[in-house]
């Protein structure tokens, strides 16, 4: 069989993106990142290096941060995916991280921001009261070439405080 006849190899998958259910056929070699951007049409997830170094494409898969360029879309079958478009509440109220990033000038060009926010959603869920060193360590998987990170660190620490205030002293949940 020639390559033309064998490919594209398609597979049906079912997953949710930000709570919305998708039943689609994906090419088996397609990365989750490309699927989210091109098939689902949510372009908030950015692709930087496409080999797992920059962190821009980070999304939450079943609540866990993952590089969507290092996963095949077919591997997300059955998963709940959260992208940057899904972190605000349903009524459009910004996530505390979004408020804090806005106020502390934690982004300039914004290319890395989606990956940083999704990573920090998971980090602050597991570590609701981090110190600065822990925040810097948690940010080490995301590259930002604009800000010098200072504003991001400040914003994450501020968001942690806002989230703790919202949860009103309720402890973290570790799955």
């Amino acid at each position, binding site marked *: 069989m020639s*390559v033309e006849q*064998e*490919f*594209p*190899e398609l*597979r049906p998958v079912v997953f949710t993106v930000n709570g919305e259910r998708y039943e689609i056929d994906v090419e*088996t*070699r*397609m*990365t989750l990142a*490309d699927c989210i951007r091109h098939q689902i049409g949510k372009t908030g997830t950015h692709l930087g290096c*496409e*080999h*797992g170094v920059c*962190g821009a494409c*980070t999304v939450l898969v079943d609540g*866990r*941060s*993952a*590089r969507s*360029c*290092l*996963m*095949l879309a*077919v*591997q997300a079958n059955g998963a709940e995916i959260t992208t940057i478009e899904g972190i605000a509440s349903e009524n459009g109220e910004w996530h505390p991280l979004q408020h804090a990033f806005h106020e502390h000038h934690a982004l300039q060009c914004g290319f890395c921001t989606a990956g940083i926010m999704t*990573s920090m959603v*998971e*980090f602050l869920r597991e570590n609701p009261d981090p110190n600065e060193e822990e925040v810097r*360590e*948690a940010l*080490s*998987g995301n590259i930002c070439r604009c800000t010098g990170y200072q504003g991001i660190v400040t914003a994450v620490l501020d968001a942690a405080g806002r989230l703790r205030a919202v949860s009103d002293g309720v402890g973290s949940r*570790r799955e």
Partner: protein
Amino acid sequence: MKPPPFHYHDPGTVEEAVALIGSLENAKLLAGGQSLMPMLNMRYVLPDHIVDLNRITGLSHIDETDGRIVIGAMTRQREIEHSDLLQQRCPLFRKALLQVGHRQTRNRGTIGGSLCHLDPAAELPAVLTALQATVHVVGAHGARDIAIADFPAFYMTPAIEFDELVSAVSFSPWPIGHKSAFVEFARRPGDFAIVGVAALMDAADNGMIHRATISLSGVGAAPVRCTATEEQLIGTKPDEISLRVAAETCRELDAMEDVHASPSYRQHLAVELVSRAVQAALDDAGAGSTS
């Protein structure tokens, strides 16, 4: 940048996976994907078939049986990092894992994937070398065990056949109270280290070391045991000078050269980091303690 075309297979059992890799030409096993996916994206590898192990739930487990701790090959690095059993019995894993990639990659990356990729700088193969672990392999012709020291064949290549896969690793845990450390030098946290050291030590209350294993990543193509250092330490209560003298033996190790560092710099790092790791292990409160 996209992966090249391949046929995708996602077996549900080890038996199906073994049957597939035994019958397919030019197949690659996909574990956590944190090394293979970049290589596919950059088209460093061009497999005709990808056999994805992620649906095989039986390969993901951390158990203690018959006095040995067994970790399934598809156990995520994150699960190992957060395992209470391992934190109690072998805290070296967590110490090393905190320096493996980042949270986002540890969520996906697996111990079997790291072991089979066999990057010279990888932390987990060095940990398993210090633990003198056994690698459990299954293939078309049955199961077999490989001592970790015999697992690397050559640069980034494990000594397993094309129709075999790693199903688990196991090791005898060191006694409660044993000391450990993982120390490495990388230009930034989470980067591949130039050299890393895993150290395990068992010492009497008076500080006399009666058992020690030390392994280095990033010096040779595969992890190396610092047997000369170990021999000099065992039976002694090292002070700063004798520790330094023992670590100095690492300068004799064969070291590789690449764009990141020269052999002599790797040997220098080996000496320096081994002395730091041994000191950190001596200062360690010990496995099973509350800290």
